[in-house]
């Protein structure tokens, strides 16, 4: 039982990170039908920028975190403004290559600016593990889980209560109709890139104390986030959230009970299995084609 609880804790922690990255994928996909393969780089920026601001520049954590998130958000805005928007109307494959180009570019910039080494970030509130029914839980995991809950509530309020949030949903449902009722679709898309970049950065800086961070951690985390988004059904933020948590839990359970050698493969085996049975993910709408 203690063992199970232990795997569950680590699964939830990892899953929360996947969930936040996955929600970022969903938000961008909803407003622009773009799968942003540079999403993982926002996660990396979050971690690396926080490390640089605290360790190199000596800023307190409470100041470094918002600045790191702002840097990522600005990167997201720039990506949309200078790379995605000019390619409006290009094929899916072309846009995918543009976001891949952007991710190589961003990695290159961070590599030059901050170097290639592993960087560690201090835990936000110590490393003394909490003991719960024989299992241990790192305080940093509580930060991660707390952040996920806060993000979920924040998004719920944002989409339900604010005009901008509703405009974003409207754009996702029907771009043209949204434009007709006076929603500035381009600004909504810009906002969605900023928002999802900020979410990614938050995930990155929360996880950096647990796993270390480096200029290239974004590749794998981005792919796992993409898995989460697909598992939940593309375009559903809640689907991505649940998909991410599920993915994290199954991954850690299989690593714990079977073998950690195939930990990274588990996510993809699950994805293939789910897609073979439900081609549009767990919660995705079944699509129809227009001729």
């Amino acid at each position, binding site marked *: 039982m203690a063992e199970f609880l232990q795997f569950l804790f680590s699964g939830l922690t990892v899953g929360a990170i996947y969930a936040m990255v996955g929600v970022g994928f969903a938000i961008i996909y909803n407003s622009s039908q773009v799968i942003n393969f540079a999403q993982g780089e926002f996660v990396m920026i979050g971690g690396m920028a926080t490390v640089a601001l605290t360790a190199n520049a000596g800023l307190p954590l409470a100041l470094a975190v918002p600045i790191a998130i702002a840097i990522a958000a600005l990167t997201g805005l720039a990506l949309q403004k200078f790379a995605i928007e000019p*390619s409006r109307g290009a094929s*899916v494959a072309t846009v995918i290559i543009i976001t891949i180009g*952007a*991710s*190589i570019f961003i990695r290159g910039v961070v590599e030059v600016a901050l170097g290639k080494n592993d960087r560690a970030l201090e835990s936000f509130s110590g490393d003394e593990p909490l003991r719960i029914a024989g299992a241990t839980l790192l305080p940093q995991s509580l930060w991660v889980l707390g952040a996920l809950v806060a993000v979920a509530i924040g998004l719920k309020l944002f989409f339900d209560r604010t005009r901008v949030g509703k405009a974003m949903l409207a754009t996702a449902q029907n771009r043209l109709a949204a434009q007709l009722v006076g929603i500035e679709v381009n600004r909504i898309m810009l906002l969605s890139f900023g928002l999802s970049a900020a979410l990614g950065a938050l995930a990155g800086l929360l996880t950096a104390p647990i796993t270390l961070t480096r200029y290239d951690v974004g590749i794998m985390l981005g792919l796992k986030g993409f898995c989460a988004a697909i598992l939940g059904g593309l375009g559903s933020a809640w689907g991505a959230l649940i998909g991410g948590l599920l993915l994290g839990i199954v991954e850690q359970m299989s690593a714990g009970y079977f073998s950690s050698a195939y930990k990274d493969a588990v996510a993809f085996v699950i994805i293939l299995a789910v*897609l073979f049975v439900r081609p549009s993910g767990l919660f995705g709408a079944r699509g129809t084609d227009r001729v």
Partner: protein
Amino acid sequence: MRALLSARIGGVLLLAAIVAALPLLGPNRFYVDMAMKSWLNAAVCIGLNLLIGYAGQISLGHAGFFALGAYASAILTARYGVPGLVAMLAGAVGTGLLAFAVARPILKLRGHYLAMATLGLGFIISIVLTRELWLTGGPDGVQVPALFVGTWRASGLETWYWIAGGAMVLTAWLSLNLIDSGIGRALRALHGSEVAAETLGIDTTRYKVMVFVLSAVIAALVGSLFAHAERFVTPQEAGFLRSIEFVTMVVLGGMASTFGAVVGAVILTVLPQAVATFQDFKHIVFGAILIMVMIFMPRGLVPTLAGLVRRPGGGPGA
């Protein structure tokens, strides 16, 4: 029809002439090696282009098939003493069977779901190759014996340059013929609209599966050649980044253009070496070039440039 025929044969002859003429520029080993790798990459991309450019189905996992071919050759020849050509054939057949087995459920998926599934397939292959140390030698890779055809030993960079060039020209010839056949027309129809193609009586699933398997087999065969040419393979050949590299070559050169696939492969094989002069800034430069080309030439280099030549002064080209 006659014009088509001559364009087809003319194109293949042009490629063959380039392959034949290139060594005249000089015996610099570094350049010959780069040219050899360009041709091998080009052959994979010509196959992949049939899938992406003509059938309109994306695959982010083709490096997996490439690596399966490479490892089949490596393991069968080194460990079990199987003759090189037989190992190559076994790799191609095995990869083809795997591709065929997964093709139906995978190709049912659309757009980004298909991208995810193929990505996942490639990832699983690369992880298995990395983890099954007893068979593959693990992350450090594995030595590959020289390729023997009968008693003739295929070795030396120059020999492999000609083998790679020959393989590329042959693949191009195959691809151009396929595109001009009924299969090619069916593929273009289903790229335009799958539903419309179905109402015309085209068995879209059958054609998609056929092209998926064909492109996987081509990748596996080239993988075998690569293994013998390099005499060494690592699981990185199956990696996600390698799959992305193949797709980028196809898209950059121009989708639905066999020559585009070749141009894209050559550029992306040479460019990383060229931008290496920027040293620390090489990834920044490489990423920026990729973004710029795709923004300003969203249809890829060859179709965009061909359009310019055909209609000077701009306007949508053919």
